[in-house]
């Protein structure tokens, strides 16, 4: 997995593909954003800061990780801006810099170990038995692990980790 | 509760400026007391002192003559002639026992709807304080 400047350039170009410059701050994305309702995440502000070239501050901010990528903003935006794509690309750029919230590092390592983003707690296995549901299929994590390792995903989720 | 004294005020308004100002007050829905009755003349210079005296004789509690600001008059200086007449008329009103404040001259332009309403309100208040027209024929 390229982690050098070529990746950064590719991702930066990806940023402009979602045309943040077309945004005229109408707020339609923010009005419909479920995350905005419960957190201080505002897709409109992210796009404004992008337009003003404040990408550095965005990469370091935890706000970009609050977007739940439900694509509502992308559907309603009257200017064909793609805020969701923009958030995802910002996260990748941040990750390259080693800025990854611990909860996502946890998810990453869980996928590496179990092939699942969320480990299945014992209590749930018992509950299934109690209701007579068939047991969950066993996930063979090996092919997932080999694939992720081939693109250095394991190194990525440890990058910048404070030991 | 005795009926509160509601003065009757006659207004002479010139077609080009103050009458248009009164129209603008209407268009802008500026509310003012309904004590006035407006007579349209082509120019404030048309208002003959006889009309003012007759108005008081018929029972007007106040007379308001309105016209264009100096220099705006559609007929050059008709308003300035009105100004001389009203000043002279106020003097003679004193001799027949009518308080000069019952007669007022005001310049109101076509775009001063709010001023028209304000002047009307002030005039109603002033005349209310002065009370009914002393000349009013009893009975």
């Amino acid at each position, binding site marked *: 997995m390229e982690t050098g400047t070529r990746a950064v350039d590719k991702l930066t170009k990806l940023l402009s593909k979602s045309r943040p*410059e*077309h945004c*005229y*701050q109408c*707020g339609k994305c923010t009005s419909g954003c479920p995350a905005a309702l419960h957190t201080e995440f505002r897709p*409109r*502000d992210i796009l*404004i*800061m992008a*337009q*003003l*070239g404040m990408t550095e501050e965005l990469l370091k901010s935890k706000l970009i990780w609050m977007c739940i990528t439900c694509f509502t903003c992308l559907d309603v935006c009257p200017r064909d801006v793609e805020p969701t794509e923009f958030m995802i690309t910002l996260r990748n750029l941040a990750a390259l810099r080693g800025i990854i919230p611990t909860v996502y590092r946890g998810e990453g390592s869980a996928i590496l170990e179990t092939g699942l983003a969320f480990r299945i707690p014992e209590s749930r296995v018992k509950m299934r038995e109690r209701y007579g549901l068939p047991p969950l299929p066993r996930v063979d994590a090996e092919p997932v692990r080999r694939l992720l390792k081939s693109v250095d995903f394991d190194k990525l989720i440890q990058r910048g980790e404070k030991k | 509760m005795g009926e509160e004294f509601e003065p*009757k005020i*006659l207004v002479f308004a010139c*077609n*080009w*400026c103050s*009458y*248009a100002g*009164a*129209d603008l*007050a*209407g*268009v802008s*829905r*500026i*509310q*003012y007391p*309904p004590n006035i*009755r*407006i*007579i*349209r*003349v*082509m*120019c404030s*210079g*048309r*208002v*003959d002192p*006889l*009309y003012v005296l*007759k*108005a008081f004789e*018929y*029972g*007007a509690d106040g007379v308001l003559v309105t016209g264009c600001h100096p*220099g*705006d*008059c*559609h*007929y*050059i*200086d*008709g308003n300035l*002639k009105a100004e001389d*007449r009203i000043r002279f008329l106020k003097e003679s009103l004193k001799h027949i026992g009518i308080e000069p404040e019952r007669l007022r001259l005001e310049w109101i332009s*076509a*775009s001063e709807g709010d001023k028209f*309403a304000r002047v009307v309100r002030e005039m109603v208040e002033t005349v209310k304080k002065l009370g009914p027209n002393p000349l009013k024929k009893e009975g």
Partner: protein
Amino acid sequence: MTEEELRIGVFICHCGINIGGVVRVPEVVEYAKTLPGVVYAADNLYTCSAAGLDAIKKAIKEHRLNRVVVASCTPRTHEPLFRKTCEEAGLNKYLFEMANIREHCSWVHMDDPDRATEKAKDIVRMAVAKARLLEPLDDIEIEVRPEALVIGAGPAGMTAALSLANQGFHVYLVEKEPEVGGMLRKLNRLYPTDRKADELLQQLSNAVYQNSNIEVFTSTKIVDVSGFIGNFEVLVRKDGEERKLEVGTIIVATGAEPLKPTGLYGYGELEGVITQIELEERLKEGRLGTPKAVVMIQCVGSRIPERPYCSRICCATAIKNAILIKQASPQTQVYILYRDLQAYGKEYEEYYRRAQELGVRFISYTLEKPPEVSRGDGGLKVKVYHAVLGRELTLPADLVVLSTPLIPPETNEELSKLLKVPLDRNGFFLEAHVKLRPVDFATDGIYVCGTAHSPKDVPDSIAQAYAAASRASIPMANRRVVAEGIVAEVNKDRCIGCALCVDLCPFKASRIGEDGKAEVIKVLCKGCGVCAASCPQRAITMKNFTDSQILAQVEAAFKG
């Protein structure tokens, strides 16, 4: 007036709910029937509609009415229409009177229907009292010279002059500056097509100078204006030498000028703080250089309590210049700080998107928290509270460009007095009606176009210039205009020849005849009535506003 039997018809209008929503119209109709001389009274939803007008005509014929009173809105807009209707029904149009029960009653007493209804009755009673004494009059025809005066040779003035000339009228184009062009001389390029202002200036001025129907006067001042529609006499002066122009109509195209924002945002103190006009000059002469950052601030000195209007063109101008800067030096950072971006219509919205795509950065601020400009390290610094982001930003800038509004030139005051046409609250010329007659003045024969009317861009000024040309061409094409029969008349027996009226009349419409008595020149009399009110012998009757008619109204006002 022969003793024919008075048969007055009164028509009371609901005007939808504008009158009927406050005044109890049926009650006023019943009351009107009780007034002496009234033989017919009715109401309708819209008296000025075709149905309403037909109702009046039908009533005049069926009830042999010889006086008509319409109680509705202001005579200033609807009297001509109703007079024409009476005329079409065979009734002399001056046997008609209006009672204003909308602007002067229902609209200003909306929360007091009882007293509004009583007042409406009084107003109708006063109108009927005057109607009883109205006499038939006939109009006067005035000959109109097919020559026009256009004041101001900017894009609007030149376009109006060209259009009138192409229609075959002779045009005097008077310009106070040494050269024609007005604002075009100061502008670099013109949106929406980025065309060079000089090219348009050349195109228009060539056409003007080559047109045999147009006489151009530069460095010329209007000294005096007299007369009226069809026969204006205009005295113009150039280098001390005067000349009298006789014209039928006048078009005012005196333009507007950008506000000098002294004292705002450090203009005049801080080096590098300039206005959009000064930026235009720098761009025109290629003196922009390669600034690292340019910050433009909109609404400087406009949309504020002292100057409430939006000057309409500053946003589009700022966007235009921002695009030009970006094209000239792409790495320059350009900011536009705005309150509400007026990129209206089709072209300007595309313009705004082009600027966005070129990387121009738009930041919204509010009147309550305006930006602050101060000296920064190696240039200027602009602090602005981003209204949407809710944060203060600091922007380094080599150049701060202030977008100021167009304001009326000082000459407006003087010209408005010369021409007897009003100015609005902001000092621009006040048109007859913002919707119905946007380029006419209330005074016949005088028209306005371009930024003299209000701030607007070149295409709108040119469109309005054509409009003014069209309006002015009407009286000139017909070579005549019909003046109202409302003139003064001297009663020779009572007149003692004191000539007071001759001195007083501003239109010189009164003179002493051979018989030593005063007499009125009908064509010159404009119907102000000043002479009638001054005559010591009460010898002058002001038709349609006679003493008896007005005194009847005075009496009716107080006799319930």
